[in-house]
């Protein structure tokens, strides 16, 4: 039996070996993708294009502009004419040649009034074509204006004293709020899954498309043997990807491994086995590779949506939160982040391991059932 | 000027296989030319070179006066090509497949309808208009591809094993179609592994390991066989022993078993006494022995064997 299983698996490995491009993509695709993602998302948002019009022109307003210039978040241009009524002209580049994200208007008499403690008003226009850039710029601008304003208006209050007025914030697990530390584990969990289901789905779909599946059916194999034989390449490739990606996450993007590495390795393998069933299900409902790839895309998108991959699940509507529990990737991402960043073990993660086990039984059971049925109908 | 002309045509593949090795060939207008040869002889490669869908690594080929490299697209306008595998779309119906080819060749309206009806009738596919290509039987698929290749009334037809995997009845129908085209003046080059089909051609070339070993009319080819062909009948159980015994006989060029008879190519009829003696020595009873006219198959197998040794 083992022999026959390995025989089936061997054929697929040969197929990969003869198809070097494919081999390279499915082996290195995950790590490459992950590196790109980490680099793209890890960069800080800085040099936000900012135009400031200073109607005051006082020492104080000039100093305030200097504060903005000194801050990395902003790349400041000082306008030599007043901001137009229609801010579109600034945000589209029609007026000052660049499409600015921030426009700040400092009114006449600003310095005088600030010194006198009369709360002069500064207007900030945000171009929210990108909400993230606008929010980041707004937060930074508020901070600069507050501390600089206090410095001028309340000369007897020191910065330390002002800061003591604020609650103390401790960030755990990802102390620097580094976005790459968030996106790279997400991507690893996701790619591990996509590679595994993709390899399983495309390989089976290819055989169906070219009729070599029929050959498989006339061989004296038990359906289980065929399924396991077909599973081996997908598991091996998915897992190889995971190991590579883990290396990239840890060594290139500095995500710590605070918990038990062996535990993580075991659970990752377990997770691939669970998701494999999804690959088989997709392959069994598609007749051609074209269908298979479209289905893989659709399923990948849905999974991403429910996984907590990009947005915290807690913020979703309650119904969606409940549905999300049915997606294995949701549980795996919690396990992955838990072991990597929080350093927790089974004592805390066990509910998610149990959930994975239950989903795995369900999905793989369904795949086996469907497989048997399609065998019966094709035989 | 011949319709198809090649000179020292060579095709070498990466890895060193020389599929076509210095082919010189001339096919006249209106000829029905057969290329026969075992698997891997280079038949498909030859046709692909003629169809201008593969570049030769040496030599030249012209089809209908156009160079297959420099004027590949002009060649393609003149030919109808039928690849060895089903070359049409399995998900499209018979009619859609033909419509597609009409689209390509710009056949419109009434003319298109007439041509499609005519070809469907010709191929006996009129009842299967709506059936998908992939659901046709092997023979019908072949006829469909032939019909598609004929849409634009090509002057040259290049057919690669058009009857392989087709039942005998459909094969006969197919050849009737070819005869009709042939009498209509179309130049046809057909590759086939079947020797009986080769007999239907005006001229036949035998390809082996990339070379055309001989090339002549079927009758002339059969005359090339030296000596005589003798049909030997022995009891069925003794067939294998008899075959081996006869092979060892001096003066025997080739031995082939056909059902209950053994065909023997011998240098002359005077071999008879020795033959009887050998069989008697093996304890095999000779039921019948008589000379028969040579067949194409025997001629070719003999030529290939004598070349191999």
């Amino acid at each position: 039996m083992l022999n026959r299983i390995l025989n089936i698996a061997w054929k697929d490995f040969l197929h990969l070996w003869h198809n070097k491009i494919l081999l390279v993509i499915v082996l290195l695709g995950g790590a490459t993708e992950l590196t790109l993602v980490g680099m793209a998302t890890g960069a800080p948002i800085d040099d936000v294009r900012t135009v400031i019009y200073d109607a005051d022109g006082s020492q104080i307003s000039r100093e305030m502009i200097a504060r903005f210039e000194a801050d990395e978040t902003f790349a400041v241009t000082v306008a030599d004419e007043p901001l137009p009524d229609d801010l579109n002209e600034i945000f589209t580049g029609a007026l000052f040649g660049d499409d600015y994200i921030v426009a700040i208007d400092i009114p006449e008499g600003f310095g005088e009034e600030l010194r006198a403690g009369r709360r002069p008003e500064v207007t900030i226009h945000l171009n929210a074509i990108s909400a993230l850039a606008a929010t980041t710029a707004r937060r930074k601008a508020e901070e600069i204006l507050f501390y600089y304003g206090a410095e001028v208006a309340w000369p007897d209050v020191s910065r330390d004293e002002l800061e003591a007025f604020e609650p103390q914030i401790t960030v755990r697990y990802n102390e620097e709020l580094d976005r790459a530390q968030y996106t790279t584990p997400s991507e690893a969990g996701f790619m591990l899954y996509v590679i595994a289901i993709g390899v399983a789905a495309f390989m089976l779909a290819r055989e169906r498309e070219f009729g070599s599946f029929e050959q498989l059916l006339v061989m004296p194999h038990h359906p289980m043997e065929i399924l396991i034989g077909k599973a081996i390449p997908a598991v091996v490739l998915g897992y190889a990807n995971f190991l590579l990606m883990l290396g990239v996450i840890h060594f290139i993007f500095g995500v710590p491994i605070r918990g038990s590495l062996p535990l993580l390795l075991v659970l990752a393998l377990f997770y691939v086995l669970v998701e494999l069933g999804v690959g088989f299900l997709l392959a069994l409902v598609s007749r051609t590779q074209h269908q298979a790839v479209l289905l893989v895309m659709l399923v990948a998108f849905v999974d991403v949506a429910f996984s907590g991959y990009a947005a915290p699940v807690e913020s979703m509507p309650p119904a969606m939160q409940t549905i999300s529990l049915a997606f294995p990737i949701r549980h795996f991402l919690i396990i992955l982040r838990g072991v990597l960043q929080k350093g927790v073990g089974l004592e805390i993660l066990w509910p998610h391991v149990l959930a994975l086990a239950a989903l795995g039984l369900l999905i793989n059971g369904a795949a086996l059932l469907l497989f048997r049925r399609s065998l019966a109908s094709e035989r | 000027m011949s319709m198809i002309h090649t000179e020292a045509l060579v095709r070498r593949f990466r890895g060193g296989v020389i599929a076509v090795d210095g082919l010189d060939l001339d096919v006249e207008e209106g000829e029905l030319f057969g290329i026969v040869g075992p698997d891997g002889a280079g038949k498909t490669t030859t046709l692909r070179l003629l169809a201008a869908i593969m570049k030769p690594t040496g030599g030249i080929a012209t089809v209908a006066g156009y160079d297959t490299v420099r004027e590949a697209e002009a060649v393609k306008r003149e030919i109808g090509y039928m690849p060895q595998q089903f070359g049409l779309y399995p998900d499209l119906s018979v009619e859609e497949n033909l419509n597609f080819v009409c689209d390509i060749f710009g056949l419109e309206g009434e003319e298109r309808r007439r041509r499609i009806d005519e070809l469907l009738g010709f191929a006996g596919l009129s009842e299967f208009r709506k059936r998908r290509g992939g659901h046709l039987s092997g023979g019908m698929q072949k006829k469909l591809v032939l019909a598609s290749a004929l849409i634009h009334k090509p002057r040259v037809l290049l057919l690669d094993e058009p009857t392989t995997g087709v039942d005998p009845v459909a094969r006969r129908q197919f050849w009737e179609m070819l005869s009709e085209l042939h009498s209509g003046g179309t130049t046809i080059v057909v590759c086939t592994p079947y020797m009986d089909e080769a007999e239907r051609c005006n001229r036949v070339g035998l390809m082996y390991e990339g070379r055309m070993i001989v090339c002549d009319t079927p009758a002339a080819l059969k005359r090339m066989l030296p000596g005589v062909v003798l049909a030997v009948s022995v009891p069925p159980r003794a067939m294998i022993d008899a075959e081996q015994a006869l092979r060892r006989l001096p003066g025997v060029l080739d031995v082939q078993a056909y059902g209950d008879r053994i065909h023997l190519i011998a240098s002359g009829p005077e071999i008879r006494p020795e033959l009887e003696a050998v069989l008697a020595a093996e304890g095999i009873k000779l039921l019948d022995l008589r000379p028969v006219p040579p067949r194409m198959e025997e001629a070719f197998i003999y030529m290939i064997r004598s070349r191999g040794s």
Partner: protein
Amino acid sequence: MRTHASNIIRHTFAIARKEIWHIIRDPISLFLVGFGPVIMLIIISYAFAVEVRDVPTLVLDLDRTEASRELIERLDATEVLDVIGTADDMSGVERAMDARMARVAVVIDRGLEAMFPAPSGDLLGMVAQLAALAQVGDRGLPVSYIVDGTEPISAETAIETAIKETNAFLVERARALLDMLPSSMQNLPEVQRAREQLETPIALEVITHYNPEEKTLWDLVPAMIAIVLTMPAMSVATVIAKERDQGTLEFLVATPAARLAILTGKMLPYVLIGVFNVLLMYLAAVGVFGLPFRGNLLLYVALMALYEFACLAIGLFFSIVIPNQEAALWVSLMFFLFPGFFLSGMFFPIVAMPLEMRMEAMSFPVSGGVFISRSLFLQGVGLDVVWWAVGILIYVGAIMLALSVLFFKKRIA
């Protein structure tokens, strides 16, 4: 020459028609390419574009006073934070955060209530104390927050909310105390100063244009429209490889159909499908998600069709240079889909980068599509603003099509 051109056009339509038959013949694929993008748009937008809200928050209240309860209620009343329970000690907080039951913990130490003077007795002393409250000095505020940083974007929003609410809480309480002073005292310079310091020194008016509530949804939907439009490119990536795999390419290349015609003919139906998708997704964006559409719809559809063409040209190129379907599919999947997510602007806003870097990023056409889609949706601008991205798309599309024609040999390998 003229007949040559008309041949190419005829061949293009012949191939396009055949391709449409293929698509219609395969209902699963037809459904997936026809409606897959809009389905994905809706799912993704629903799931991703939820604004950060109801972040589970745990309370460790050691002060147990009216003030601490008031602060907790205040936090719970926000959209962003959701108080889910209380812990008895720090180890309870640790456990809840480790298990991801809570993503924020607010710890209120003893002394919060005590910071505020009792509203009785020594009134001037009270003012002095209030003034000192604004400068709690070395004692520090007895309120601290512990935030789970594993999801930095929502963590940042939670932190901003925590700080704002805490400040507002302090300011409101202090102001209430000042209001209790008799009117005779309201004009005292100490009182004035105390009031002054309860406000920020500069009054700030923030006007957010295009997306006044800074909603991720508005940002995301136009971007996703461009991203999911890569799906037809996935289909095109299979077309040549599929003909090669199934052996029909041999018949096709032996016909006089022109190379350019074969390639554009294969793209054409998918451009049409792309346009259909754009219209559907436009309806979903406006109808389901309530986005404004401020640009010119006709221009939008035209530019998105151009964008689709650029993506298809890349998919086609993969299909030609990669020897079989399976590998071509993987390459295009890796190339389009996954990087696409990160251009959605949720993680990194390309628009905020300097122009040269933006141009570089946009040689990846999905970035260009995202930029154009957002600009037309939210800003309502026209070609005068997005022309350079359009230029890059045309350039990329033309180069890829030219390379495809160059590499597509009407020959068998």
